[in-house]
Structure formats: structure tokens, C-alpha cells
């Protein structure tokens, strides 16, 4: 695998701030009804997975919603929600996509809704993106029936049941889910909450087909994905479109960083994990020593001067503060984890602290309406692994300020 990365230009091909005319000039004419024919089969052949974090196969999700709508005594019309809530503080690719390619997102939503036999449609996005979406909807002929809902700027506002809850009740908190949203979501209707980048990819597959989609990426991780890359100065925050299965080190280089100068990289955001900067490829599946799940495409590099324990303690404190405070294990467990991590970061020399952190993580995992507890636990667990030398140093009373594990 060569270290240099071929930057792809698919999603943003219409150029900056593309309007309807520029969009059509770049991507060609568009007929959502025509695009809907055979779309689910094309998505299956393309192997498109969600770009919002969970990496679930899009066709499977869509087929489940179509099926459960038909199975009922009174068939229910499904709902497709374009999810542009980007609660991850280190994520900015959806904002960029909605700023420059809102029409591609809308195309994908129209096609998917048509493929589900005329589903209801909502666009859900934070205030910063909302105007652009509304402007794009006005630009298009036959202004569509997409209703626009503002997402609050909270970490969990984009969690799929929170999205449905916000649209239904004006409260962006996750809901208890006895049944999947694809069976019973908004107003009891089969509901698809789809990340905006996923919808843009749907639009491209609808236009150019599954074969074309697979020309980028690998067999296991076909197509491209947007990544939000940030790191120590002088590296600037950038959004890159990279092929599936891309090497992490190549992505860092493309963003203007030298992997050798880094101690560790946070991949997948605050619910992701720390990995050493070399040896990992970005892919939703694969062995954990060679692949790391991109999640929603967040890549955040840490230099050798920073203390990984301190950085993670800050993040876990934030995650604890972002608990919806509905579920006990999360409401009490996350602040407890943050407190223990802060004590370690602050230099308390107590050999019991790290095992206690591990115990708390195991305790809260899998016990909540959403996956905030296990997401937080995964991050903490990777901190204990990747920064093991730092934990040992802190225990002996000093801080290396170097992610020694990556050396």
C-alpha cells in the first residue's frame, strides 16, 4: 500500500457554494422518480454504509423500513430524515457538505423517499446549516415537501432516537427503544434517520451506479468518505474526501502532518478510540490492530508535547456533562469515570485508580437508552491501552508529555 493518498473529488465536485445551476452542470439532470427505480438494489450492490457513525448498510436499513411499513394491517408511509446534526466537537464535514453541496444531499433524500414509495421527509440540521438548506430548497423547481427542523447544539442531538424525539416533541433526548426506528419511529411510522453525507452518496449511486461507486475504496469498504482532520498547529482543520480503507498515516500526511511527530490519533470522535499514528487503515470492519473504525470520520491528532491522559480527562468530563441525565448508569457512571481520570491526570499516585476506571467502564457499558455509555467506555479503554506508559509515569509521579506508546 503506497503511503500517498489519491484525493477524491466526488461529493464536492460542483465547487464551493454550488447553487442549483452549478449543481446540475456538475452532476447532470435529475429525476427523483426515475432514480428511485432499482435504487435499493443499486445501494446493495454498491455496499454503501452509513457515514454518520454506525456504518450500517444503507440498503438494509431502507429495506427494513419498507418492509415493516407494508407488513401492517394499515400500511404506514415511512419517513426519511436527513440528519445534519453534528454534535461531535471535532467533526465539521457535514457542515461543509451542507454549505457546498446541499443539492446533492436533497437529491439523495428525494431518491430514497421515492424508492420507499413516497416517504415523508424532514431535514434536521443545526442553526449554522439551516439557512443554506432552506435556500437550496427554494432554488429548486417544484420546491419539495421537505420540512426543516433545527437541531440543538448538543453532543447527543444527532443520535437517531433523539432526532425523532426532537421532530416529534421538541426534545432532542434519546428515547427508550423497545423496537427499532425502522419498525416504529416518528409518529409510529417506519423511520430512517440518514446522515447527510450518506444521502449525498446515495445521490451519486443513483446517478452513476454501483460499479462507478466501487471504483474508489476497497472491496470491504467501497466508495469514499469525508473526514474531518484536526491536529496540533500549524496543521489546519481540513475536510478531505478519502477512499475507503485509506491508511491513517496517509490521511494525516494529506492534511499536512508528519505522523512521526505525533503521539496518538483519536479516530471516530469522542466515541471512537486512540490509536498509534502508524499501521492502521480506516475501515468499518477488520482486525483492531490493523484497522480502526472511522465512525463519523473524525480524525484528531495529538503531538508529543500533549498529555494524552489530560486530553482524555477533558473529553470524558465533557461527555459526562453531555449526558441526557435520563439513565442512571450514565448519569452517575460517566461523572465517576471523569473524576477518576481527572485524579490520575492531576498526578494522584494511587495504583487503584486505573483498575477502578476500567471497572466503571465495564459497569456502565450497554446500560442506557442510547450508546453514550459504551461510546465513552471505548474511548477510556483505548486511553488505558495507548497511553499505558503515561499511566505508569503518572503513577511514579511525573508526566512524560509524550504518548510513549506510539514511539
Amino acid at each position: 500500500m503506497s503511503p500517498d493518498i489519491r484525493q477524491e473529488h466526488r461529493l464536492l465536485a460542483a465547487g464551493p457554494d454550488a447553487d442549483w445551476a452549478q449543481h446540475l452542470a456538475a452532476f447532470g439532470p435529475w429525476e427523483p422518480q426515475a432514480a428511485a427505480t432499482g435504487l435499493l438494489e443499486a445501494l446493495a450492490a454498491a455496499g454503501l454504509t452509513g457515514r454518520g457513525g454506525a456504518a450500517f448498510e444503507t440498503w438494509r436499513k431502507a429495506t427494513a423500513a419498507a418492509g415493516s411499513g407494508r407488513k401492517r394491517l394499515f400500511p404506514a408511509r415511512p419517513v426519511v430524515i436527513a440528519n445534519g446534526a453534528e454534535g461531535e466537537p471535532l467533526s465539521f464535514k457535514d457542515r461543509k457538505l451542507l454549505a457546498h453541496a446541499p443539492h446533492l444531499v436533497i437529491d439523495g433524500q428525494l431518491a430514497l423517499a421515492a424508492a420507499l414509495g413516497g416517504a415523508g421527509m424532514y431535514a434536521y440540521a443545526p442553526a449554522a446549516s439551516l439557512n443554506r438548506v432552506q435556500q437550496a430548497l427554494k432554488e429548486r423547481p417544484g420546491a419539495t415537501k421537505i420540512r426543516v427542523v433545527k437541531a440543538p447544539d448538543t453532543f447527543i442531538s444527532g443520535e437517531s432516537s433523539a432526532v425523532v424525539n426532537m421532530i416529534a416533541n421538541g426534545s432532542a433526548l434519546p428515547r427508550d427503544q423497545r423496537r427499532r426506528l425502522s419498525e416504529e419511529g416518528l409518529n409510529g411510522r417506519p423511520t430512517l434517520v440518514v446522515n447527510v453525507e450518506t444521502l449525498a452518496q446515495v445521490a451519486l449511486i443513483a446517478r452513476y451506479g454501483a460499479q462507478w461507486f466501487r471504483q474508489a475504496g476497497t472491496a470491504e469498504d467501497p466508495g469514499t468518505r469525508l473526514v474531518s482532520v484536526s491536529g496540533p498547529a500549524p496543521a489546519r482543520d481540513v475536510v478531505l474526501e478519502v477512499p475507503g480503507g485509506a491508511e491513517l498515516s496517509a490521511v494525516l500526511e494529506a492534511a499536512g502532518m508528519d505522523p512521526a511527530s505525533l503521539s496518538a490519533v483519536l479516530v471516530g470522535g469522542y466515541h471512537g478510540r486512540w490509536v498509534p499514528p502508524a499501521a492502521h487503515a480506516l475501515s468499518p470492519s477488520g482486525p483492531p490492530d490493523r484497522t480502526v473504525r472511522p465512525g463519523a470520520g473524525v480524525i484528531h491528532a495529538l503531538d508529543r508535547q500533549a498529555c494524552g491522559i489530560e486530553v482524555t480527562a477533558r473529553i470524558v468530563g465533557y461527555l459526562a456533562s453531555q449526558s441526557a441525565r435520563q439513565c442512571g448508569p450514565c448519569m452517575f457512571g460517566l461523572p465517576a469515570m471523569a473524576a477518576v481520570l481527572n485524579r490520575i491526570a492531576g498526578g494522584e499516585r494511587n495504583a487503584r485508580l486505573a483498575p477502578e476506571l476500567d471497572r466503571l467502564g465495564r459497569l456502565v457499558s450497554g446500560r442506557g437508552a442510547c450508546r453514550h455509555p459504551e461510546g465513552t467506555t471505548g474511548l477510556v479503554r483505548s486511553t488505558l491501552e495507548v497511553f499505558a506508559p503515561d499511566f505508569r509515569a503518572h503513577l511514579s509521579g511525573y508526566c512524560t508529555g509524550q504518548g510513549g506508546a506510539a514511539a
Partner: protein
Amino acid sequence: MTAHLHIDWTSCDGRGLCAELLPGVLDRDDWGYPVARGKAGRERTDVPLRDADREAAREAVHLCPKLALTLVERTPPEPEHRMPGR
């Protein structure tokens, strides 16, 4: 036909009645909330039950002061590999 006990964490208040009625299935955590014994991941929210525990689980569902429990008779999951659109 396996049943499982669904815990609605948004309703659960950690009163602990369920753990008393199902001591072999549920333990309690530091704050009094139920923890499924020997289970990991989402099986701690949808707790698989042995037939022998079903009656006690039914009782827990009825007696939970927060109505946080549901007994779910799981239907066998659909086969994974269906063609899309069928």
C-alpha cells in the same frame, strides 16, 4: 421461543425491586440500578431469560414502581440475507 426482559433506563430509578425478585438474573450497581449478571453489551438492556425465570420476571414487570420493565417474547429474527426491495 426465548423471552427477554427489557429495561427502560429512562424510567428506571434504581428502586431495586426487580433485583430482589430475580436475584439470579439481576445484580445492583454502585447506585442501585439493575445489572444483568454475566451479560455484556446490549444484553444488559434486553436481558435474555431462562424459562424458569419467566414467572418472576412477569411479577417484576407488574411490581416495578416506575413501570420500567417489559417482558418481550422475542420472535425469531428474520433471515439476514434477503434481497433488497423484496
